[in-house]
């Protein structure tokens, strides 16, 4: 009874419409690539939950997160990016053609950019959902600390993030109460942070405690902690609560295809590429040090540009370098190496010798090793002879005779 899905082709499919995905779209759109951005909820991502963004450069008036991301969306639209507001149901990224399916469409793309972000892990305390984000429960001290000047805040958790962010909060807040699950003196963070926290006069600890409930009219007023040993309820009046009990990246869709870290983040290289060629990952879903709008848009710029290069290289690779009609000679060299540069004249001689029988391609690997990577060549210079679009011989020595013989052998 499955409905026939509409099949559509794109150069780039971006999954996730937060700042990272929008930025990637701006770059691929501007490179005139046919781009689709799929977002399952609101375009703008987690940034739209923030009421004031004070640290994104260029916006001195602390706009709402939505204001910034709406501008990004407009910019992407102006550059021709198409938007689809629905959830991705499944992906198959392993082939040359990447397949992304929603419940009504099947998209076939040359490249896929994963920008699915993540979600903070929550305590599961009673009525927690009523106070999330701008109503009293925050997940980011870097974002919200300054708004807590001279206030009393509660921090949940005792890992590195909780204690380090908690200490950062003491620079603003009058008091920071930390709820720790463990016995007195035991924390999950490193020893240095622990000792600094214990001797910080603004920090107080409630040991053996977890969150039972959140209370307050409209805005959070009280966190009710529970002693895990005695079940005693401990109401703590406060202005805001920060939860630092982990972050869950949205990578469920990609498990088994894209390599993930043990914490389920996607590791990427300096071009934001994952373990799969043509599949990039950016923003909070990646294994990165700082999760901010400013770093997300930087990731997007890199991946958008890398996707464009990947597609251009794919086309050159298939149509020119791996042409099937004639025997081919590919000279891979690094232009800053003098010997390799001088050998170019020898390559020309060989080219002239065979005339129109041989197709010669010279590939400078100085700027990008993309084509060399596809040929699985890691050391340069190298000469590859192809026949019927397949690698026939690979030579690492710059020897005219040897190369000429190899070419003849495949004629």
């Amino acid at each position, binding site marked *: 009874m499955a*409905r026939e899905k509409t099949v559509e082709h794109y150069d780039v499919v971006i999954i996730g419409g937060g700042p990272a995905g929008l930025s990637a779209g701006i770059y691929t759109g501007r490179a005139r690539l046919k781009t689709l951005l799929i977002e399952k*909820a609101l375009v703008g991502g987690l940034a739209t939950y923030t009421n004031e963004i004070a640290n994104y450069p260029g916006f001195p008036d602390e706009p709402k997160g939505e204001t910034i991301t709406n501008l990004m969306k407009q910019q992407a639209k102006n550059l021709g990016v198409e938007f*689809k*507001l*629905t*959830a991705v149901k499944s992906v198959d990224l392993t082939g040359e053609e990447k397949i992304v399916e*929603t*419940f*009504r469409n099947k998209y076939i793309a040359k490249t896929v950019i994963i920008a699915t972000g993540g979600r903070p892990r929550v305590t599961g305390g009673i009525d927690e959902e009523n106070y999330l984000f701008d109503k009293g429960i925050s997940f980011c001290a870097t974002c919200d600390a300054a708004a807590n000047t001279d206030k009393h805040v509660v921090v949940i958790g005792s890992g590195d993030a909780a204690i380090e962010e908690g200490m950062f909060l003491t620079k603003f807040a009058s008091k920071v109460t930390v709820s720790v699950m463990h016995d007195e003196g035991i924390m999950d963070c490193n020893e240095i942070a622990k000792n600094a926290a214990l001797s910080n006069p603004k920090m107080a600890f409630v040991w053996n405690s977890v969150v039972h409930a959140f209370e307050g009219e409209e805005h959070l007023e009280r966190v009710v902690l529970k002693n895990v040993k005695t079940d005693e309820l401990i109401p703590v009046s406060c202005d805001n609560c920060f939860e630092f009990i982990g972050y869950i990246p949205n990578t469920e869709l990609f498990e088994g295809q894209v390599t993930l870290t043990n914490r389920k983040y996607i590791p990427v290289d300096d071009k934001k590429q994952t373990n799969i060629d043509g599949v990039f990952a950016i923003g909070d879903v990646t294994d990165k040090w700082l999760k901010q709008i400013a770093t997300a848009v930087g990731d997007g710029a890199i991946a958008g540009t890398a996707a464009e290069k990947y597609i251009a290289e794919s086309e050159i690779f298939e149509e020119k370098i791996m042409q099937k009609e004639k025997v081919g000679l590919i000279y891979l060299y690094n232009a800053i190496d003098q010997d390799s540069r001088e050998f170019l004249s020898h390559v020309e001689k060989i080219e002239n010798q065979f005339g129109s029988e041989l197709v010669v391609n010279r590939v400078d690997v100085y700027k990008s090793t993309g084509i060399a990577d596809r040929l699985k060549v890691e050391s340069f210079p190298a000469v590859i002879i192809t026949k019927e679009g397949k690698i026939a011989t690979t030579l690492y020595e710059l020897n005219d005779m040897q190369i000429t013989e190899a070419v003849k052998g495949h004629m």
Partner: protein
Amino acid sequence: MKEVVLDCFGEACPVPLVKAQNKLAELEVGDVLIVQIDHSCAMKNLPEWATKDGHNVEVEEVDDGEWEVIIEKTK
């Protein structure tokens, strides 16, 4: 497996949501309901409700400030 179009142009929240909920209740599993809206609040609460209820949802911006919320009944 039929497709039903529900015209909610010009109607403010929560009218589109209530209308959609009533209409979807009449439909069979596998049927698709297309709700046409032009109030941005319905663009939030309609998909939110339908997703929470476990149906397949897609929002299409058909024109500036006009959307179609496409809901496939799954149960």
